[in-house]
C-alpha cells in the first residue's frame, strides 16, 4: 500500500477508517482499563467518537488534512470527556501537519506526532510522566524520529506507544480522574495511552497489510 513511500488522501482516509474500527473493537478493554483507575467510560466514549469518525470518513473532505480534520472534529464533537478533547486534538494536529501535502511521508508523519504531542501538552496542561496518553504519544514521537521511511516510522511509533503504555504502569497519575488514586494508580496502564497505542497499532497494521 505504497507504505514505504507515502499514503495519498484516499489511503489516509482508509487508514483512519481502519483506526476507527480498531478503537471500536477495543471498547470493552478501554472501559475496563478506565474502570481500574478512572470512571469506566473511556471505551464507550472512544466508541462514540470513532463511530462518528467513521460516518465522517464515508465521504471525507478532500485532502489528507481533510480526512484528519473530519476525524478530529467527529471525535471532538462526539466523544466528550478528557478523551474527546485530547484525541480530537491529536487528529486536528494531523490536519495541520498534513495540510497541502499530497502524501503522508515519513517526515510529515513525524511532524504530525510532534505537533500532536505539543498540542495535547498545551491543551491538557500536562507533561510526560503524568500518566496520560501524552506518555504514549511522546514515546511514539521519539521512537519514530530516526525512521528511514514511512512504514518504519509508523512501525516505530506503534512500538513506541506500546512502550509508553508500559511506562505509564510505573507512573503515579497527577491529572485526570486517576489522579486521586495516587500510589494506587501504580501498576495500571493509562487508558488513554492504550487508546493511542491502538490507534498507532492500527496504522502500522494498515501500512503492513
Amino acid at each position, binding site marked *: 500500500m505504497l507504505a514505504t513511500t507515502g499514503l495519498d488522501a484516499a489511503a489516509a482516509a482508509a487508514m483512519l477508517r481502519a483506526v476507527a474500527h480498531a478503537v471500536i473493537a477495543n471498547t470493552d478493554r478501554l*472501559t475496563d482499563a478506565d*474502570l481500574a483507575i478512572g*470512571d*469506566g467510560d473511556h471505551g464507550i*466514549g472512544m466508541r462514540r467518537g470513532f463511530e462518528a469518525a467513521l460516518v465522517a470518513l464515508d465521504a471525507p473532505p478532500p485532502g489528507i488534512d481533510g480526512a484528519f480534520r473530519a476525524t478530529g472534529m467527529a471525535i471532538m*464533537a462526539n466523544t466528550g470527556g*478528557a478523551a474527546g478533547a485530547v484525541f480530537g486534538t491529536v487528529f486536528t494536529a494531523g490536519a495541520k501537519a498534513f495540510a497541502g501535502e499530497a502524501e503522508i511521508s515519513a517526515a510529515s508523519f513525524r511532524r504530525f506526532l510532534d505537533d500532536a504531542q505539543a498540542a495535547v501538552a498545551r491543551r491538557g496542561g500536562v507533561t510526560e510522566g503524568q500518566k496520560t496518553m501524552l506518555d504514549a504519544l511522546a514515546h511514539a514521537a521519539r521512537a519514530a524520529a530516526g525512521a528511514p521511511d514511512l512504514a518504519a516510522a509508523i512501525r516505530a511509533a506503534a512500538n513506541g506507544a506500546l512502550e509508553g503504555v508500559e511506562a505509564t504502569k510505573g507512573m503515579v497519575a497527577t491529572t485526570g480522574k486517576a489522579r486521586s*488514586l495516587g500510589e494506587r494508580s501504580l501498576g495500571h496502564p493509562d487508558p488513554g495511552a492504550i487508546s493511542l497505542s491502538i490507534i498507532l497499532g492500527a496504522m502500522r497494521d494498515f501500512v503492513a497489510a
Partner: protein
Amino acid sequence: MAKAAKKILNDPRRAVSQMIDGLVLASDGRTRRLDGLDAIVKTEIPDDKVALLIGGGSGHEPIFHGLVGDNLGDGAACGQFFAAPAPHIIYETAKAVHRGKGILFLYGNYAGDNMNFDIAAEMLTDEGIDVRTVRVRDDVAAAPPERMEDRRGIAGDVLMIKIAGAAAATLDSLDEVERVARKAAANVRSMGVAVSAGSIPETGKPTFELADDEIEVGMGAHGEAGIARQKLAPADEVADQLMSRILPDLPFSAGDEVALLLNNLGATTMMEMLVVNRRIRATLAERGIAVHRTDVGTWLTVQEMAGFSVTLMRLDDELKRYLDMPCRSVGFSHWGTR
C-alpha cells in the same frame, strides 16, 4: 464483578438524550432544548442579563442540567455519562444564553471539563464574547490545600450555582458576577463518603467495588479514589471524620456563619443524612460556628451510588443575600429564606 445494575431505561445509548427531553417537559415550559443538541436553556432570558452557563457530564442528575431555571443557570451543556460535554455543545449553549453582557462558565474542576469548556471559551472569545470561568474545587479529599488546582468539584456546585445564579439575575456586570462567584468558590469545602457503587447504564458495571462491610471516605463523584477505605462505622464517627477534614481546611472558625449542605449521592436514605446532620450540628455548635441555612437533599448524584457528602460554605452578608433568594428549576426549587 458484580452483576449489571437494574435500570428502567430504553436504549441506554439514547438515555441522555431522552433524559433531556423528559427534563425539558418537567420544567413546565420554563426551559427548552437546543435543536439536535444535548443542551437545555431557559425559555426566557431577559435582555442585558449576564449569562450563567453550567454543565458537565450526565449521570449526576439533577446536576447540572436540572439546575437551569430562575435565579439559577441560564443554560447547561450536557455530556454523555460521566463525560464532559463537547466544545460545540458548550459553544452553542453559550450563544443561546448570551445577551451581550458576557458569560460566566461555572463547572466542576475535571480535566475533561476544563479542556472542553476552554476550547469553547476560546471559540467565543475569538468572536468577541466575554467569557469568564470559575471552576468548583470544593472536594478537600482530592488533594491537599497546596494543590488546590487538583481538587475536584462535588456538591459545592449546588451552592455555587445557587449563588452565581442569583448574582447573575441581579448584578449587571460580568465582573461583579465573577467576583461573587469567586468569593463563593474560595469559601466552599466538601467531602463525601461512598457506601456502594453506581454504574453507567451502557456498561452496567459498577465504577468501583466495595466489600459488604466497607465504605470509602473521600471518594469522588465518579468513584475516584478517596482517602480511606475502611469498615462501616457509626454515623457519628463518619460525620466526625468528614468534619475533621473539612473544618481545618479553610479553616472554618468560631464566629463564622456557614451554609450547610448535605448531598445524597443517590441511594442513601434521608434518615441517614439527618442522623449525620445531628452530629455535624453538634460539632459546629461546639466550635462556635453558626449555621445560616441548611439544605438536605439529592442534587449531585453518581447514578445509584449510595453515600453522601457534606458541604460547608463560609458566608458574608453578600453571599447570604444571594443564597437566600428564591430559585426554581426541576432539580432545585426553594422559596428562599426570609
